[in-house]
């Protein structure tokens, strides 16, 4: 019988089907005392009618008859009686009976028997039986106090209930100073202890004593109560939930609980994560049943502190049969994308969006489209996902359709940038704008959409429309996003409205904190250059460099976790910009110094080699300049600037011994393939055609160049897109 009770674990003792049944009022036999001294006892229960009428007089009467009949002491008799009342639901009567129990006296008595026992281990047979007697006595009294606590709780006296419950645990610690003996212990006693341990923190919580709740949870988990797995897991889970959501900062566990080299959580979230990890492992090892809420709490905890890569690992470890394949892949994709591992996330989404799996999962489609929209090589794939998302959301929710259209437009625009033919490019661009427009009609003021539209309009050189969208973006975000300010300034610069662009940049500098001002200062310096104010530009660059260097010194490792890295200006860029400026002023020495600094930061950079080439070219050292450009192309095969400059230089060299118009042309065409909006490339190609005797082609090129020159931003708009 005892075994069955224990194997239930979470089961209840003393319920009506239990082995020690007093509940039904008829007389029943209980093996209260296993030794011969008391033998089987018959508790002559009163009939139903009498039971309800138990009052103080009856209690005393019953108590004395119990004491005489069963040679129980005063406390034990009361405990038995009280339990009887409790089981009948007479909570108040039970409480009156329990009130008469002097726990301290009982503890002292039991303590002495138990410590005697410790010493007289040798006389085994006698001590074992005696041991059992006192264990039963202990069990009886402790259970009585536990039931007293429950009675108080039922009557709404929660604080008193908690105090009684606590006294059970205190008593257990006093009686069993050497821990509860594992083998000999009576199941009943263990069960009472477990229940009291489990109940106490809940009572403190209910009473609003959160600090006590906290320490009683820790006491439950850190002391040796010999709890079974299920009970321990329940306490761990409740404690984790309390730590996660309770809003009570506990401070680390006391020093007494710490052992050298072991992990001690230093705040609530850490402690909660530790407990949830332990629970998950218990489940992996088959020590407890799967509880889906543990995984949800764990997900919440880890995503709150941005550790979704660890979360992904645990989703991978979840045993089969809990999540469906696609659910697991989608969860993993969310985790990996959340920590910036978009490639991994996309691979997982590809699996789950396979037509044999769940090809219409809207969130998966949108996430896949979003990831693809950041990479021009994936844009075509992204278009597919976005189209499917739009089709899927057709009948579902208009708002999600808007999101689908948003990413469709973004992917189409990205695809257009890398299309091989002009015709296809303009078709894709038109389609992109159409999707974005449609999305704009559906979505309610989503700022990101406005930003994307502004960029798309800027790409097709519709600067007025781009400016309108960019202004709307600033309004929608309240100017709180740096890239919005940069976008407006660049659009204005593309319209050659430099002074207005500078006003905007200054306004933006007012709205941004010191550390984010780098990109704005860089634009400002370029604006000064464009307005032929070189000395002011130099001043701005100096300011920028000071900022960047200060930034590098004060960067803690945690500072940037909320911001994206691309808001930062690299010191390298600043030196390069300044080198350009000095060389345009023919301050060769200064330009050299700046280049030296830049090279020290990035030795094999195409941009630095390009700047070096320009300086050399301006100083008339054409061959060396060509070498620098060529090295630049080797360092970065797609560097447009180096190709244009190399092509232009080779064209100019016509007539010299290294003349090669064909090579020049291939450089320029290559540059245009990579960057069709490069005015300089068109211009040089025009010159080349003219030189080669093809005036009609030359005229076309010059026309393209002049059209582009009118709308050339100071920095490419692409800089504003987050790098994938």
């Amino acid at each position, binding site marked *: 019988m005892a075994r069955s009770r224990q194997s239930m674990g*979470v089961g209840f003792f003393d319920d009506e089907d239990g082995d020690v049944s007093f509940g039904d009022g008829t007389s029943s036999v209980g093996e209260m005392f296993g030794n011969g001294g008391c033998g089987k006892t018959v508790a002559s229960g009163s009939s139903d009618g009498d039971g309800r009428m138990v009052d103080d007089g009856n209690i005393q009467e019953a108590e004395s008859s119990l004491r005489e009949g069963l040679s129980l002491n005063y406390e034990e008799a009361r405990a038995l009686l009280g339990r009887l009342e409790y089981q009948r639901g007479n909570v108040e009567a039970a409480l009156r009976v329990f009130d008469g129990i002097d726990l301290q006296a009982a503890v002292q008595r039991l303590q002495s028997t138990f410590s005697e026992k410790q010493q007289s281990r040798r006389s085994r047979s006698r001590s074992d039986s005696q041991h059992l007697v006192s264990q039963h006595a202990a069990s009886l009294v402790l259970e009585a106090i536990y039931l007293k606590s*429950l009675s108080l709780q039922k009557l709404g006296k929660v604080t008193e209930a908690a105090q009684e419950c606590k006294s059970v645990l205190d008593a257990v610690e006093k009686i069993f100073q050497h821990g509860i003996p594992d083998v000999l212990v009576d199941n009943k006693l263990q069960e009472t202890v477990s*229940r009291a341990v*489990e109940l106490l923190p*809940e009572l403190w919580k*209910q009473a609003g004593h*959160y600090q006590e709740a906290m320490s009683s949870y820790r006491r439950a*988990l850190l002391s040796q109560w010999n709890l079974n797995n299920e009970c321990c897991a*329940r306490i*761990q889970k409740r404690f984790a939930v309390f730590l996660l*959501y*309770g*809003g009570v900062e506990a401070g680390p*566990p006391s020093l007494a609980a*710490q052992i050298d080299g*072991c992990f*001690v*959580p230093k705040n609530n979230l*850490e402690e909660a*994560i530790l*407990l949830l990890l*332990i629970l998950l492992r218990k489940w992996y090892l088959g020590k407890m049943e*799967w509880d889906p*809420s543990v*995984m*949800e709490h764990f*997900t*919440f905890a880890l*995503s*709150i*502190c*941005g*550790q*979704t*890569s660890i*979360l992904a690992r645990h989703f991978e470890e979840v045993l089969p049969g809990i999540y469906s394949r696609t659910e697991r892949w989608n969860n993993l994709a969310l*985790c990996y994308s*959340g920590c910036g591992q978009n490639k991994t996330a996309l691979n997982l989404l590809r699996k789950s969006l396979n037509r044999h799996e769940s090809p219409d999962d*809207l*969130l998966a489609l*949108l*996430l896949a489209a979003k990831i693809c929209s950041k990479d021009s090589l994936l844009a075509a794939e992204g278009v597919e996902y976005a189209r499917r998302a739009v089709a899927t959301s057709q009948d579902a929710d*208009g*708002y999600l359709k*808007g*999101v689908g259209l948003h990413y469709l437009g973004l992917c189409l625009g990205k695809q257009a940038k890398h299309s091989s033919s002009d015709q296809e490019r303009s078709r894709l661009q038109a389609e992109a704008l159409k999707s974005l427009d449609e999305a704009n009609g*559906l979505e*309610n*003021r*989503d700022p990101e959409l406005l930003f994307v539209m502004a960029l798309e309009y800027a790409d097709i050189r519709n600067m007025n429309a781009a400016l309108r969208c960019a202004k709307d973006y600033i309004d*929608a975000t*309240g100017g*709180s*996003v740096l890239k919005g300010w940069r976008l407006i300034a660049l659009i204005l610069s593309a319209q050659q409205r430099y002074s207005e662009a500078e006003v905007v940049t200054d306004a933006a500098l007012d*709205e*941004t*904190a010191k550390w984010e001002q780098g990109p704005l200062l860089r634009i400002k310096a370029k604006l000064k250059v464009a307005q032929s104010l070189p000395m002011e530009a130099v001043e701005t660059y100096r300011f920028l460099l000071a900022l960047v260097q200060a930034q590098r010194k004060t960067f*803690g490792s*945690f500072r940037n976790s*909320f911001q994206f890295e691309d808001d930062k200006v690299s010191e390298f860029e600043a030196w390069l910009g300044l080198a350009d400026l000095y060389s345009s002023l023919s301050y060769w020495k200064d330009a050299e110094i700046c280049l030296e600094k830049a090279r020290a930061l990035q030795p094999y950079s195409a941009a630095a080699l390009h700047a070096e080439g320009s300086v050399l070219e301006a100083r008339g050292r054409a061959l060396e300049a060509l070498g620098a450009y060529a090295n630049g192309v080797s360092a970065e095969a797609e560097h447009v600037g180096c190709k244009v400059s190399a092509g232009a230089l080779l064209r100019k060299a016509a007539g010299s011994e290294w003349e090669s118009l064909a090579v020049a042309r291939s450089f320029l065409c290559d540059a245009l393939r990579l960057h069709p909006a490069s005015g300089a490339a068109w211009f040089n190609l025009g010159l080349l055609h003219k030189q080669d005797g093809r005036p009609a082609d030359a005229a076309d090129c010059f026309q393209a160049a002049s059209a582009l020159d009118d709308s050339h931003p100071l920095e490419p708009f692409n800089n504003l897109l987050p790098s994938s």
Partner: protein
Amino acid sequence: MISEWESPISRAQKAILSLSDVLGRPLPESVAYSENHALRLLHDAELCDEISARLRLPSSGAGDDTVCRWLYDTFHSMDPALQLAVLRFVPTIAGVYLPRAAARRPLPGYEAVLLALYAHETTARGDQPVTVTVPDLCRPSVYHEGAGAATGGELAVGVISPTLEPHGAVRATKRARIVGVALEMYCSKVCLMPARSKVDFCEFCLAWAGPTSARDEAAKEGGRIPLPWELIQPSLRILGHCLMGTSDAGEVQDKAAAAVRGLLARATLDVDTRAILATRSLLRAWEMAACSTKRWPDLDFLLEDPPSEGDATRELLPSPSLA
């Protein structure tokens, strides 16, 4: 200004007296003549409602706003109980301030209070971020024995709140962070806040999320704002407390659940993966808790045969796709 050397009682008294000036009427006796003014104030629903209503006026938040001024001075009293009373209004200030500031209105009154909170927290934290070290179970901890050999690698460190830089003014790009820190402070004291204050917060969260479906007419009134992680994260921690914290039932939980649903829909619109994971798991965890027990905390599990939680909730799991 309230000087440093005054006793806490007289400081509290002064703050309470000046509040009656601000409101233009004598305060209720229970607050004015109480032993513990600040605590009474915190829990006086009528008085708090009046202050909240004043904060919500279309004209409030200006430089000469007396309520903001009072909150600012009271917070500077450095009396923890009074500061608690100020924190009670963080939801209202954040909720009213963010949409108005996004419309680029100058609101120095609100900003003064927010900056006071921010500066206090900046000093309190020093140069340290708030972080979480994710334990590795191979190493033993206070709650378990290590299994196998420790991997020896560095433990992953998650950031709950990055280092605070001092700010003397609210710049647009730092607005969310400054309000977010005020929310973090509120979060750290949320278990002491009255239900009304939490309900306010939940309602504002829902408004911030904005309309999230074409059918969602109620939310179309406006209030939608950009929700960067630095706002979502502390908001979710507060909402988590409202849902599964210690003492709230009824209205707070219902409003919080609505707010989390709104934020989940918004996170889906933004395809913001971190926010989706956090809101979705919070909502699911709450739904599971609500299924397995009636109200939390609940001691029924100790009084009757407990349902085995796994079985009870497995069927009720929300669908894995969009919540």
